[in-house]
């Protein structure tokens, strides 16, 4: 077992959920995307230890034992021969398949629900009273002529970023990542608002995908990170920021 001193809060949340119920395909994909070892059963083991600790063991009645033994003998066919490395490979394949299935499900749900396009959803959020906070560009080369704003609702846990003039990125080389600072959380660990790409220097609207609940957003910052994003940013390249007044 690997001993993880620190764990991404969302990964921890998902691993706890996994110990209590089967994860959805989208959640499994999210877990895999967070770089979590899919073989990490440490929280499930903790739950099992609690179960043993709180179980008063009673003997199985003999007649039940006889029936169960007979049924097991009939159900089993051959010895258990799943080498551990093959089983782990199989688990990884399942995660990959689940990730793909999750993407299809998300796309399917988006289309089926007939959700608003990002521009319309952003306008609706502003119409409901959320403010558009203007970005302040830094001196970073990607942000030279960037402008735009961010709209976020703490109540609805939804938001959109609008950019004009932000540099187009090569997703295989680097990506943008949004960070949301929450007044109720440790400021050293802002909430991951999602990794995204910019494919045009014209107007681009990007939905925010906060990985944790944001109680009270106090600052939004976009950084440049490696492909896929990071769990904790070194904040070496901050491109734009926005702060409620």
């Amino acid at each position: 077992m690997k001993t993880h001193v620190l764990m991404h809060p969302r990964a921890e949340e998902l691993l706890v959920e996994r110990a209590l119920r089967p994860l959805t395909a989208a959640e499994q994909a999210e877990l895999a995307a967070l770089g979590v070892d899919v073989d990490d059963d440490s929280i499930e083991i903790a739950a099992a230890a609690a179960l043993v600790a709180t179980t008063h063991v009673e003997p199985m009645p003999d007649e039940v034992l006889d029936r169960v033994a007979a049924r097991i003998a009939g159900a089993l066919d051959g010895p258990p021969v799943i080498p551990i490395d093959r089983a782990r490979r199989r688990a990884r394949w399942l995660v990959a398949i689940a990730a793909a299935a999750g993407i299809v499900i998300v796309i399917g749900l988006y289309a089926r629900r007939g959700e608003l396009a990002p521009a319309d959803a952003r306008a609706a959020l502003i119409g409901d009273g959320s403010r558009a906070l203007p970005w302040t560009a830094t001196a970073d080369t990607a942000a030279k002529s960037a402008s735009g704003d961010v709209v976020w609702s703490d109540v609805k846990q939804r938001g959109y970023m609008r950019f004009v003039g932000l540099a187009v990125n090569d997703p295989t080389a680097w990506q943008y990542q949004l960070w949301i600072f929450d007044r109720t959380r440790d400021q050293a660990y802002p909430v991951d608002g999602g990794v995204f790409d910019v494919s045009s220097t014209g107007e681009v609207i990007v939905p925010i995908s906060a990985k944790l609940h944001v109680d009270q957003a106090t600052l939004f910052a976009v950084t440049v990170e490696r492909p896929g994003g990071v769990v904790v940013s070194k904040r070496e390249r901050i491109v734009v920021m926005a702060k409620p007044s």
Partner: protein
Amino acid sequence: MRDCLARYRGLVWSIARRFEPSDAEDAVQEIFVDLWKSAARYDASVASETVFIAMIARRRLIDRRRSRDRRPVTEPIADEPQLAAAGNAPDTCAEASQAARVLDQLRPDQRRAVVLATCHGMSHGEIAEATGMPLGTVKAHVRRGLMAIRAALSGVREETA
């Protein structure tokens, strides 16, 4: 398998009766078949045999419950989940002792949430409904409780390594 059945039948039977008082026999059969199929994945450096068996049993029982989509608790919920008396388990394993210590240190409402989630297979929503605790509080209690047990078990393994 015969040895496994002889050694752990009481534990598996008791766990199954907690989750499925009316259908424990079917559940026990499925759990032992799962154990047989999963035996090659057992790693003594990760967990004791007792805890591994309890883990496989929980998985099967949770799957059965979810697939039937029925309420997990069909027996009255004790206000104060009691810890098993020492010596009741077939092997008094260090992990269970450590988990008991952690559970004992939790506040009663925290302990109740953890036990209902881990030992009765109840969802967060079902626990909130059953106990009257807010959903967010239930989630926080379960998460912190499990992480505390996990941390304690990590210490056990380091000591025995």
